């Protein structure tokens, strides 16, 4: 159901993005922003959900929350990577370079590496409970990066433009573009939800398989006890 909704909203977002007229100065290149901006927002949302899942796991000790945190971090890393890649394509055409030492770019890349570290940590710990407990703390710590990335364009004089929508005062965007962007945001949010749900289900199955393998390898209680042996026989 969620997957179908994701597909429908994605098609709707694509059609809306193509129907919007050309942007005056950037032409068709501006359409990259209909993916770049929602991907960046979804990355923030994903890491905020990782924070929530991590906190709830530490509170409730329920592995479902850990799976939510992990699934959301994985999807967040995907969206952060997409944001950086599309930003680089847009930057090459607009600024003339793939990469520039801009605060927003560097800090977004750092956020990407923080959560890559989170995923690497998870892969290093086989025990589900130890993995959940340790990565939950990292999931909470990693959140420090999000406000720094978001406010970097305000704190530093950067090449990256300041916020256009999430800013005090009126939005600096024409209504047709705003509508297409909002449609893309809705579509990406549904895609995010579908991906996280699927990832959580996969993680549950992985845990179940691991548990079954461990149960097979585990010695049965009392296996170390052997039948008594009588030296020289019983004499019968």
């Amino acid at each position, binding site marked *: 159901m969620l997957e179908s909704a994701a597909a429908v909203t994605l098609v709707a977002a694509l059609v809306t993005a193509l129907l919007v007229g050309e942007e005056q100065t950037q032409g068709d290149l501006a359409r990259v922003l209909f993916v770049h901006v929602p991907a960046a927002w979804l990355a923030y949302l994903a890491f905020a959900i990782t924070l929530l899942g991590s906190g709830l796991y*530490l509170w409730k000790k329920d592995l479902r929350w850990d799976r939510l945190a992990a699934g959301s971090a994985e999807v967040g890393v995907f969206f952060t990577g997409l944001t950086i890649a599309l930003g680089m394509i847009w930057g090459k055409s607009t600024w003339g370079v793939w990469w520039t030492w801009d605060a927003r770019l560097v*800090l977004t890349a*750092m*956020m990407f*590496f*923080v959560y*890559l*570290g989170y995923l*690497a*940590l998870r892969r*290093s*710990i086989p025990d589900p*409970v*130890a993995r959940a*407990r*340790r*990565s939950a*703390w*990292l999931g*909470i*710590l*990693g959140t*420090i*990066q999000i406000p*720094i990335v978001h406010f970097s364009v305000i704190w530093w004089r950067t090449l990256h433009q300041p916020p256009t929508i999430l800013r005090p005062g009126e939005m600096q965007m024409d209504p047709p573009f705003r509508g297409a962007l909002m449609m893309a945001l809705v579509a990406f949010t549904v895609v995010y939800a579908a991906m996280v749900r699927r990832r959580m289900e996969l993680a549950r199955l992985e845990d179940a398989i691991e548990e079954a393998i461990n149960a097979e390898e585990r010695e049965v209680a009392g296996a170390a006890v052997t039948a008594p042996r009588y030296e020289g026989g019983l004499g019968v």
Partner: protein
Amino acid sequence: MTFWRQAREIARKDLRTEIRTGEVFFVTIPFGAVALMLIPLAIGTDAPLLRDVGPGMYWVVILLFGVLVALRQSGVDEGPQLDVLGLLGVDPAARFVGRAGATTLLLLAFELALGPVALALYDPAPKGWGWIAVLIPMVAIGLGLLGTLAATIAASIASSALVPLLVAPLSVPILLAAAQTMEGLALGNTIVGWILLLLIMDLLLAVAGVLSARPLQEASR
């Protein structure tokens, strides 16, 4: 034994082990000095350029090589040692505070040892020595807490590259605050915001380290 006494004893034990092995003083500090010497060979020996980039390079070396201080073998407790500490009733939070305290002192020594090397090699003209005297211990505290926390999270994991991967991106606010403070002092700009950022980071890491100490110790058994 009180909490602070436990923390002090853990820190003293760590420092005594460091004095015996000399891991930081005879390995990491010379390694950091070599790194400071290699940078000009890579980017060119243009004196004005080196004067400009010197303070930034100093902080990058402190950050990257500081991870080695937090990860020193003399500061590693294996399972049996942790079990003994647990049986002796040592509070995991006190263990964290003691370990972070020892690491902070070693990082402070690391910073103070490399400072003159950077001054000699890059010839910068730092201003506001009073603020620098505040900045250096605050950076040491932040990196000490972060390194100890990351080492606790990744305890007993085989991959030795994992902790640097965890520490380096998370230490960005500390690096930014340190580098921007130095630049602000040189240009005569206000630096209170950066010092405040550093203070907030130190406090957040201290709270996170103390709160997570017990659950992380249980998870590593």
